[in-house]
């Protein structure tokens, strides 16, 4: 069964008719040609499809396109400001935080969403003081908060350092 929807991706609105079974991931990749969100497991377990929806990171493979129309979507491509690179993009390059690169767009979007969560004061399951006003993003915090993104090449060490540097840079600004 088909339905007409509008989705807003990286600042641009798109009108399209989709089967009600279409996920946001498939709508982005197959219908709009926006291929930075990757299909890894397609079951919400690997995080390669991570996008920002209304500013929060989600798995686009578990979101039905018909259910999330009219909400602002940002992909790894849309993070770039004025065609340049987002500081998280740059940090991943500088820290060599990938090998094959397939999980990278999801890692980067997830990391950007995660930093926003941390700066909102959201605790994680490794935060010692649940009531703390400020979150200090030690490596242990970054690992826990990024556990929804798998990397089969196991570039984790450099992913953590790339995120850590970006987090510190933002804090200093």
């Amino acid at each position: 069964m088909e339905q007409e929807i509008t989705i807003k991706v990286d600042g641009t609105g798109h009108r399209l008719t989709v089967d009600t079974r279409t996920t946001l991931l498939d709508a982005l990749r197959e219908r709009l040609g926006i291929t930075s969100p990757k299909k890894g497991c397609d079951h919400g377990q690997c995080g390669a499809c991570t996008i920002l929806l209304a500013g929060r990171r989600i798995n686009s493979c578990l979101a039905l396109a018909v259910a999330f129309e009219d909400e602002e979507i940002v992909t790894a491509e849309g993070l770039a400001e004025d065609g340049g690179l987002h500081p998280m993009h740059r940090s991943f390059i500088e820290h060599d935080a990938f090998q094959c690169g397939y999980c990278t767009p999801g890692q980067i979007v997830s990391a950007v969403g995660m930093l926003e969560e941390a700066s909102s004061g959201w605790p994680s399951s490794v935060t010692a003081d649940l009531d703390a006003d400020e979150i200090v993003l030690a490596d242990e915090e970054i690992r826990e908060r990024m556990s929804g993104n798998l990397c089969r090449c196991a570039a984790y060490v450099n992913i953590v350092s790339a995120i850590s540097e970006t987090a510190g840079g933002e804090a200093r600004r």
Partner: protein
Amino acid sequence: MKPYRYQRARDIPGAISALAEEPNATFLAGGTNLVDLLKLGVMEPEVLVDVRRLTSDSVEELPDGGVRIGAAVTNSNLAADRTIRSRYPVLSEALLSGASGQLRNLATTGGNLLQHTRCVYWQDTTTPCNKREPGSGCSALEGHNKNHAILGASEHCVATHPSDMAVAMTALDAFVVVQGRNGEHRIPIEELHRLPGDEPWRDTTLEHGELITAVDLPLLDLAANSKYRKVRERASYAFALVSVAAALDVGEDGTVRDVRLALGGVAHKPWRATKAEEALRGEPINKANLRAAADIELEDAELLRDNAFKVPLARNVIVRTLLDLAEGR
């Protein structure tokens, strides 16, 4: 995936009547479990009625000192809520121990309660499962059953309930606010989920078309001293082998004034450990008494080939969690 019709109800009564008209319709909220089950072919509804925008997405203080959590509050917003963090820390900890950051951002309070077991046989349409296909048999009884229930199971089903959040809410004496065709009613969370018995396909006591609109946490002073401890096979992003939600009030004399205890990963529903609670009230808090109380709760455990480890694991986690609470850790 089988085709289905998607509709967004205008309001709660509209959503309820949409389900009433269609026996093979189901509510959709965050979708983090349902969409996966659609892909796996485990669920094949004719109609999805989207209720994500219909119920409240805020956490409000109630006049009686309790808290009302709207069914649409996401798991991450609930975990981060300041009132929950300070007055019901066990609930924040339980939520943060579950799933991943991405999933918690989509998953809702109502949907978390109604998520389905992760029993591998229920999720695999090529294997018999009484929950999925009544009368076909239970593959877990003779299969890989390391993750399965040790308490309250039946010969028809040994699946466990996967939620962490619901275990904490069970320890907190929460009420579930339900709306149906005949109006609204509140049920104790212990009466929401059911044991499998000979109807394992029924996960909850809700009738078709009843919608969870909120969860109420009553005023509970000892909840400020509460904790969730989860044991799993990875450091993060895995379901519980065993988990414990506990709240404790110890008097000046070192005896237990009051205690709340619930277990996850051990049964078809979040398991309220009332026998252990009973055994502990008024007793000095020490390791021996805690072990004895845990043993009383676990004495009815029925073990399968692979899950006997859950009994000592549950006992040890109960003891450790309550000792930590007693010692202010």
